[in-house]
C-alpha cells in the first residue's frame, strides 16, 4: 500500500545548497513528498562542511521535523548531531553520502546508488574501454577527506591489477596516483594539469566526482590533450563534451531517484513499517528496496551515458 504520510515534516539536507547535483536530488525528494503528501523543506549550508551542516541539523531538531534526509558533508563531524536528532525521535536517512561505517547506528538506513566496490570497478572498466585496456591511469578526486570517493577509489586499486594486466597506476599505487581537486573548478583544473605535467605518459584519468570530471573534460578540450577522461558526471553538465567527443562515456546513478527513494525510506521508518535492520525492506513508488549489510539500501548499478543516450538524459538531470 502506498504510504500515507500526510502532515509529515521532512527535512531534505544536501551537502550544500546551490549545487546542481543536489537540485536534482531534491527534485526526486519533492516528488516523493508530493506522492505521500508530506511537506518537505530543502535546507542546508552554502559550503559543504560538517560544521556548517551541524547548524542546520540543530535547526531540524529544534523545529521537530519527523524525518531528516541528509547527504553527509563530513562522515564524522555530523555524527554527534545526528545522534542527538535520533534521540529526539527524528528518523534519519542518509542519502548519496553516508556517515562513517562505525557510526551506522546514527541513522535508520543509508540510501546509496550502488556498492562502493561496484562504483569503483565500473569506473575502471570505463577507462579501460576508453584506453583500449592499456596504459597508465590516475584519479582526480574531490577532497582528500571525501568519504564516498575514498571508498570508491579504494576499490579501484586491486581491481585494476587483477582485471587489466596491461594497465597500471601512474604513481605505482592507487594512493600515489590520486589527486584532489576539492570539488572546486579551479583546483580540479590545476590538479588535472599537474597530472599531465608530472606524468606526460598518462593514458587515462578517472574523476569520480561531478566537479572534477567536468573540469577534466573542459581542460582536456581546451588543451586538446590526448588523455582519456571518464568518471561520474551529471549528463546535463557533461553533454557538450560527450556530444563533441571529448569524453566517450561517463556514468552516474540518477540523483532524482536517490532523493526519491530516501524520502520513502524515511517516511516508512517514521510510520514504523520499516526498521532499517538488515533484511528489512521498504517500498518507494513501484519498487521495493531491501537493506543489506551495513544498513544500506542500494539503488542498483550506475547508468552510463554516451553519445547514444546523452540527448535523452541531459534533459532530465
Amino acid at each position, binding site marked *: 500500500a502506498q504510504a500515507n504520510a500526510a502532515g509529515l515534516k521532512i527535512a531534505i539536507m544536501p551537502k550544500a545548497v546551490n549545487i546542481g547535483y543536489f537540485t536534482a536530488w531534491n527534485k526526486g525528494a519533492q516528488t516523493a513528498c508530493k506522492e505521500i503528501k508530506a511537506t518537505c*523543506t530543502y535546507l542546508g549550508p*552554502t559550503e559543504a*562542511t560538517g*560544521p556548517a551542516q551541524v547548524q*542546520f541539523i540543530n535547526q531540524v531538531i*529544534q523545529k521537530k521535523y519527523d524525518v531528516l534526509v541528509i547527504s553527509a558533508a563530513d562522515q564524522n*563531524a555530523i555524527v554527534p548531531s545526528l545522534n542527538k536528532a535520533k534521540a529526539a525521535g527524528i528518523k534519519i536517512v542518509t542519502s548519496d553520502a553516508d556517515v*562513517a561505517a562505525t557510526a551506522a547506528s546514527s541513522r535508520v538506513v543509508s540510501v546509496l546508488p550502488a556498492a562502493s566496490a561496484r562504483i569503483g570497478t565500473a569506473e575502471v572498466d570505463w577507462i579501460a574501454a576508453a584506453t583500449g585496456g592499456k596504459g597508465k591511469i590516475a584519479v582526480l578526486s574531490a577532497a582528500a*577527506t571525501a568519504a564516498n570517493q575514498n571508498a570508491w577509489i579504494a576499490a579501484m586499486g586491486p581491481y585494476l591489477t587483477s582485471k587489466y594486466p596491461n594497465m597500471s597506476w601512474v604513481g605505482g599505487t592507487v594512493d600515489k596516483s590520486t589527486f584532489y581537486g576539492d570539488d572546486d573548478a579551479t583546483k580540479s583544473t590545476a590538479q588535472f594539469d599537474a597530472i599531465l605535467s608530472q606524468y606526460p605518459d598518462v593514458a587515462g584519468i578517472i574523476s569520480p566526482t561531478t566537479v572534477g570530471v567536468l573540469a577534466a573534460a573542459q581542460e582536456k578540450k581546451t588543451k586538446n590533450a590526448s588523455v582519456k577522461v571518464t568518471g561520474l558526471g551529471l549528463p546535463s553538465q557533461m553533454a557538450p563534451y560527450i556530444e563533441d567527443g571529448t569524453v566517450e562515456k561517463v556514468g552516474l546513478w540518477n540523483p532524482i531517484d536517490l532523493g526519491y527513494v530516501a524520502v520513502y525510506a524515511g517516511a516508512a521508518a517514521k510510520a514504523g513499517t520499516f526498521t532499517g535492520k538488515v533484511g528489512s525492506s521498504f517500498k518507494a513508488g513501484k519498487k521495493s528496496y531491501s537493506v543489506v549489510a551495513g544498513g544500506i539500501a542500494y539503488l542498483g548499478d550506475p547508468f552510463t551515458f554516451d553519445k547514444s543516450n546523452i540527448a535523452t538524459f541531459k534533459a532530465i538531470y
Partner: protein
Amino acid sequence: MNFLTRIRSSIGWDKGVGALLVLTIVIGSLVTPDFATTSNLGFVVQDIGEIMIIALPMTFLIIAGEIDLSVASALSLVSSSIGYSFAHGVPFGWALVIGILVGLATGALNGFLVNYLGLQSLAVTIGTMGLFRGLCFVLLGSNPVNQLPDFWTGLGINNIPGTFLPWSFLLIAPLVIIALILLHFTRIGRWTFAAGISSEAANFAGIPVKRFKFFMYVATGFMVSLAAIVYTLRFASASPDSAMGYELTTIAAVLFGGVSIAGGFGTMWGVIFSVIELGAIRSVLQLVNFSSNALQIVSGSLLLFSVAVPKVAEMLKARRETRVKTPTPSLTSSRSVE
C-alpha cells in the same frame, strides 16, 4: 560640551550591538516559538563556542594593530595533531597536551615573524595560513580520525547534566570573563590599546611592545588550541579540513563588534555581543526558514553597517564642529614615516 562628549561616548557601537542583540532576541521570540527555548539556547552556545574562543585573542590582536588570518588553519593543525597522536597510540589526554604545544608553536611562529622579523602581520599570516593547512594534510592526508574516547567526546557533545548548557560553556564562560577583565581592567589591556594607538608612543612609555605582541601571538596560539579541543570533541573527530573559513568569520565578528581595524579602539563587550548576536541572528533566520544565502547577505550588510553607522554619526558631528580634513583610515595602523 562635556555633557555632549559623554553622551557620544556612551552610545558607542559596542552598545549598539548589545541593543541589536536584545532586539534580535525579542523579535526572534516573537516570530518563532522555537527560538527562545532552552534547547535552542544550548545549540547557539555550542555553535558559537569556537568562534568566541578565537575572537577573544583576535580582539586583542586587532586592537594592538595586528591581525591573524592563520587561526582557522592553526585550529585545524592542532586538531589534526591531536588526531594524529591519538591514532598513533598516544593516550588521548597526552594527545591534547601535544595539541596545546602545537598551538603555542603556531602562535610563536607568527609572533616571531611579525615582531622580530618586522613583517606585516596580514601578509605573514596569509603565508602561515597556507603552511598550517598544508601540515594538516601532511599529518592526516585522506584519513580523518574518528572513534575518539567516549569520555572525551561526551564532554564535547553532551550538556552539563541537569542543564541545557554544553560542557564547553564551563571553559568558555571563564575565558570570556578573563578576556573582558584583562582588556579593560588590567595593565595588559592598557598596553594593548597603547600599542594599537601608537606603537612608537607605547615604546617611549616603557612598554616592551615587541615582546608584548610576541606574547600576544603565543597566547592566540594557546586560545586557538583550546578552541581546537572544543572543536575536536564536539565533532568527535579530527580532520585536516577543519574550521574552513573560520578566520574570516572570526575577524568579521570582531569588526562587527566595533573594534577598529586600524587598532587602538574597541571593547570586549562589543565583540562578545557581536559573536552572540551573529549566532542568534543565524538561529532566528534559520528557524524562520531563511535560506543560508540570506545569512551571507545579512552578515555582509551588518559588517558594513558596523563601520558605516558610527562613521556617519561622527561625520555629522564633525560637520557641526569644525571643518578640518582628516586623513583616510587605511589598512594598517602605523604609518611608516621616515
